[in-house]
């Protein structure tokens, strides 16, 4: 479980996060949704210490991330798997080397053991046999899947995904969403997905925080989302004609 309490963040005069508090539950896919520029990415970067905050607390299973020493923060980070928007695979390494990298850095496993784990992760993301490809040879969906494999190779307790579907076609996006949800259930981890994709929200949104102009305006799950009376949330959710029509049909029924 990850808890954030009263997070404040300014960039000069720009107040990007205003007293943000939320609990990301273990074993669930927790979603942070909102428009572009609403403060989602900065929130996720604050969570993992890539950006500082003006005030507030981030608790990883009760451990205050900002109150522990840098060495302890690094150790805690080894329990976090992160899926970046563009994958962030290391260009000079093959798929296998990318996934094996955290194992080589932090474990004393033999080459055979590491390879076995890499192959297991590749199989888990349906990319068996792609070991020797370079990131430049991968499609967008494959890049995301390799990034997921790298994120789970150390069996993390927390999985953070920054817009995992950006740049993907709807079918591939659903595959990635389902993969994230399956992994969350399988390993009983705390997963946070930062997205503005409503298809993702309806697919995997078990615990959702809607962020707008730096504030959390609404929290709930995907079933509660469509029936919410929250004006800001409705403006965001029903911006798409498809969702507007769905709601109208739902109301008629």
């Amino acid at each position: 479980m990850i808890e954030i309490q009263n997070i404040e963040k300014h960039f000069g005069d720009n107040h990007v996060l205003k007293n943000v508090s939320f609990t990301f539950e273990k074993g669930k896919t927790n979603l942070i949704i909102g428009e572009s520029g609403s403060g989602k990415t900065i929130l996720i970067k604050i969570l993992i210490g890539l950006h500082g905050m003006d005030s507030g607390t981030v608790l990883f299973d009760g451990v205050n991330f900002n109150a522990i020493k840098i060495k302890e923060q690094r150790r805690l980070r080894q329990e976090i798997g992160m899926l970046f928007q563009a994958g962030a695979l290391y260009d000079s390494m093959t798929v296998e080397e990318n996934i094996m990298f955290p194992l080589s850095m932090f474990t004393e496993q033999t080459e055979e053991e590491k390879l076995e784990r890499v192959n297991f992760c590749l199989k888990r993301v349906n990319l068996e046999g792609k070991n020797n490809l370079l990131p430049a040879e991968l499609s967008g969906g494959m890049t995301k899947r390799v990034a997921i494999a790298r994120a789970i190779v150390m069996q993390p307790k927390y999985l953070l995904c920054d817009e995992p579907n950006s740049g993907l076609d709807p079918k591939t996006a659903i595959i990635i969403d389902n993969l994230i949800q399956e992994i969350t259930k399988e390993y009983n981890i705390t997963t946070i997905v930062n997205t503005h994709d409503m298809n993702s929200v309806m697919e995997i949104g078990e615990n959702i925080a809607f962020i707008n102009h730096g504030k959390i305006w609404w929290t709930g799950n995907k079933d509660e989302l469509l029936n919410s009376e929250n004006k800001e949330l409705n403006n965001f959710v029903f911006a798409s004609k498809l969702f507007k029509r769905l709601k109208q049909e739902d109301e008629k029924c």
Partner: protein
Amino acid sequence: MIKLLHHLGLYIIMMKKVISAPEKWSIFRKQLILEMEKVGLNSVGIVIVLSFFVGAVVSIQTSINMSNPLLPSYLVGLASRDSLILEFSPTMISLILAGKVGSSIASEIGSMRVTEQIDALEIMGINSASFLVLPKIIAAVLFFPFLIIMSMGVGMIGAWIGAIGATDITTADFMYGLKYDFNAFYITYAVIKTIFFAFIISSVSAYFGYHTKGGAIAVGKASTTAVVASSILILLFNYLLTDIMLS
């Protein structure tokens, strides 16, 4: 001035992170070998070509300027030797390496920054500054002195070929000049200067790459700024070190 102090502060903070024990020595060793190849071995060609031709030009120009019957012809060898050892090899080659190696370091690290690869390292719990920059600094500091010594040798071969090919100086006169009143400390001085320059090139370029913000244009800008800043610092330290060590 404030901007300069800001950069200096960030540079010191980065170097504090860089100078720390590697997370895993076996990976560090692999990276160091890779960096030696990228930073050092890949520069051998350009150093040989430049040193040879500059050596040849130095000897031709020296002989033209010394075409006086009162001046002994062996002076061409002596002047070429001292020019190459004292200035051309350590300083000029370092300036060229600032362009080649410095821009490569800044753009490599800058690209990693803008594509979130550095963030990915940090998330894994890796000290990204130390992981990426330390092997480059050590590789440069270890390898550049060899490049510079090689440049001196090749430059002198170029000077000899230039002298005997374009002027009427004999090989014996040239060789006599090369050996005449040789001060071995000049080599030490050149190597010490090179070590300083290698540190400047690798760390300053890494600093600009590491602090890149934005996209592809920012990477290009970081690369250019790294070369300019390294070159200015090389010239400044050249003056300071020469003043300290030779005056």
